[in-house]
């Protein structure tokens, strides 16, 4: 079975994000592998360990930070790494990413695509699903377990609105994973040393056999015009003292001031 995992470089969401003039301030920011993609990588590596599978990861983007996350994927156990490095893709949205990934998929003839269910920077959660739709293959999102049935089928569990849904998918298929699916392993020294030696297959759009126009990059469906810092909640009124007194007071405020009861 050939598994393709998609990984994305995102900003470390633990950091404070500052916005100036509608643009995110880059200074001091550091970039890491999208957390949900770590789950995807872990899922792929586990499938490889327990079944006869070959794993490949693909990342779209250039620069040292991107290379770093591919090396992390190697260190976690992914065997092959593809990097689509083309400057025109800098502002790509989910549709463009999906189209690029479609080309990668077709080139490698994979059986299963595993993605994180969303990326920590955009929180869009669309790319994997659009990819499946454009390839005409089945897709299940928010998956919490993957089990191989045979060469052509897998069973997946998904967290839905009514409970846990269990489905059988015909391969090839796309699966986007929830963080509940597994605990991603921490790359260890041995893996990191091996990762340094592995070769990354770097391609631009031309090498991939396509063009910016072809992937819809020249006419994007949406464009971010501005960023704003989110309003954080401020502390309100805090009451200390006799329990009966202050509780009565607060309930009164809830009714009269906040008008919620």
């Amino acid at each position, binding site marked *: 079975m050939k598994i393709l995992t998609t990984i994305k470089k995102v900003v*470390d969401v633990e950091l404070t994000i500052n916005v100036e003039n509608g643009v995110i301030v880059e200074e001091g920011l550091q970039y890491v592998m999208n957390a949900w993609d770590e789950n995807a990588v872990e899922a792929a590596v586990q499938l490889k360990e327990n079944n006869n599978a070959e794993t490949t990861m693909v990342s779209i983007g250039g620069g040292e930070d991107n290379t770093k996350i591919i090396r992390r994927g190697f260190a976690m156990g992914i065997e092959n790494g593809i990097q689509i490095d083309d400057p025109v893709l800098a502002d790509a949205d989910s549709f463009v990413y999906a189209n690029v990934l479609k080309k990668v998929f077709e080139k490698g003839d994979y059986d299963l695509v595993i993605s994180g269910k969303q990326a920590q920077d955009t929180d869009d959660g669309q790319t994997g699903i659009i990819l499946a739709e454009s390839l005409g293959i089945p897709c299940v999102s928010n998956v919490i377990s993957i089990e191989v049935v045979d060469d052509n089928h897998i069973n997946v569990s998904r967290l839905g609105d009514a409970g846990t849904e269990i489905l059988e998918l015909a391969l090839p298929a796309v699966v986007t994973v929830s963080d509940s699916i597994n605990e991603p392993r*921490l790359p260890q020294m041995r893996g990191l040393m091996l990762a340094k030696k592995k070769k990354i297959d770097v391609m631009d759009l031309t090498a991939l056999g396509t063009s910016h126009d072809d992937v819809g990059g020249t006419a994007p469906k949406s464009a971010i015009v501005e960023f704003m810092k989110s309003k954080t909640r401020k502390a309100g009124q805090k009451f200390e003292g006799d329990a009966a007194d202050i509780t009565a007071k607060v309930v009164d405020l809830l009714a009269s001031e906040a008008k919620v009861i």
Partner: protein
Amino acid sequence: MNPLLMALVLIAGLAVFCRTMVRKIQLLKALGPADRANHLKERLKSMVILAIGQKRLVGRAKERSAGVMHALIFWGFCVLLIRSLTLYGEGFVEGFQLPFLGGDYLGGYLYIALKDIMEGIVLLMVLYAIFRRAVLKPKRMHNTFEAYLVLVMIGILMVSDLLYDGARYNLIQLYDNPGNIHFFNNPQYGSEFIWTPISVGAAALISGLSMEAITTILVIMFWLHICTQLVFLNVLPLGKHFHVITALPNVFLKSLGYPHEKPKLLDLEDETAWEEESLGINHIHQLNWKQGLDLYTCTECGRCKEVCPTYTTDKPLNLHEFNDKLKLELLENSDNVIKKAKLSSTILNSEDPEQIEKIKEAAAALNSKNRLIGEVISEETLWACTTCRACEEVCPVTIEHVPRIIAMRQGQTLISESYPKELNPALKGLERNGNPWGIGYDKRADWADGLDVKIMADDSDVDYLLWVGCAGSFDDRSKKVTVSLTNILKKAGVSFAILGVEEKCTGDFARRVGNEMLFQMMAEENIATLNNYKVKKIITACPHCLNALAHDYSQMGGNYEVIHHTDFIDQLVREGKITLKQSLEGGLTYHDPCYLGRYNKIYEQPRSILRSVSQGGLKELGRYGSESFCCGAGGGRMWMEETIGKRINLERSEEIVGLRVPNVAVACPFCLTMIEDGMKELGREESIRTMDIAELVEKNMA
């Protein structure tokens, strides 16, 4: 007596003994290298105090009677060693005397008097020892056949010598010395029997027998003594009594300065080490010879178990069993280990690369097969340790328990990649944001907002760097301690700055859980930052940071003078830069942090401060000072759950509650968290206030 027989017996006994010893020494030599042949004078001093002086037995209030008992047996042995030589001589030549200890010298008389008393004392102590083992049965003790056998043999040695001398006395005094037995009889000092009352007493026990019977007893007791002694000598290397021979060298070779061998700085790029799986200790043949000697020397006394916070709370870390298991594994593999060392040394003689390869292969085939963790020691045992060093502090023969645990953890993490995965969030946090909570590094200096604290990046021309540490930077409770400390420093007019967001976790806990990679990464980055600002002196409120910066970092080229904040505050008080008011009411106790006390020997400075602020004085806990009971957070355990037995912090908190004081002072952010949590769990957080010394000083400062 009978030179031929004596010679045969001696040769036989000593030959067997030498053979055994040669094997034991060969085995040690075949193990890895250790750098202990240095500072000979200092080593001699510690050997005299600890081994010969039996300080940890006699000097420890707990079970002092047992300590004195053992000390007397040991000292008795030392004295009687000379006697044995005389007896061997007697076997060859009648009336054999050692130089200056013969019948013409006062020294000789004094010696036999001493010998006589010691034999009596040792006999009494042996009886007491048997009584303790069989009747009192202290929990820490491990009762085995060997234990009783050795005690009985020592008893036999004493009894046989006393009866031998008793028989001599009878033959000389009662039967007019028909065999012309030699004895001291100097006109100035008198007959030897005036000086040996106990032997004379033994004589009285058999005085009623006939001359022939007494002569027989004389001969039997002589040979019984000699043979028992030689048998005893050969029994020693077989079990825990090997310590009789190895204890003095083991103490002589103990770690000086730093209380135990520092974790080895592993070369993670060393391909061969990866191939041979020799990063950390994974197999028994990877121990170094000093660690091998430690294994030989365990007396199975069980004091380590008694003080171990982990064992006390029902977790599966039984330290002498740990030692025992490793020892057995080593002995089982001794042939191969020795062969391998011999084989490997032939590589030096060879020039042919192919032949070297062959030798290497053959040597590798002799590697001990068992993975230590999993097949000899369980994983739970390995990871239960908090690295508190209580065991090392009480061990009478200075065995270094903790370094081998850390080395095995190194092996588990690097080679087996098998470590408690619950550590991952903390390790990942360290990697990404330089702190185990994984909070954005950009928030590390937020505690200082609006406080007018200098940052190195703005002005590095200061006397001291205040190393805040992760807890002091990110943990809400500990941030208060940091603020208190900065207020004290400002009040005292100290010139200091912080690194702010450039500071990263020292990597202490990563090192203690065997993650050398992460530790070295953090150390490298921090050292570069510190050296960039030419930092020389560092003040810190965290003993773990203190320990890492002062001792671990020097392995990687970072050499700094690191001062704990309690030490520094004490200095400030002495210099008159701050004045303390004795305004704290209600009384106080102090919980010594392991990494401040047992690792860095700072006990008095915190106490001096606390006595100055507490109206009600300082009440000591039962387990205090160098025997302080761990809070449970060390060794990376802060980031792991305790699933077995009782929680260590609860055990300690109960002890504190039992002291009935309203305040407990701590000097470490981990201790602060663990003890405060313990108090909350016991519902005592209102009645007992847990405070860091910095907070107490700030509150009680003029």
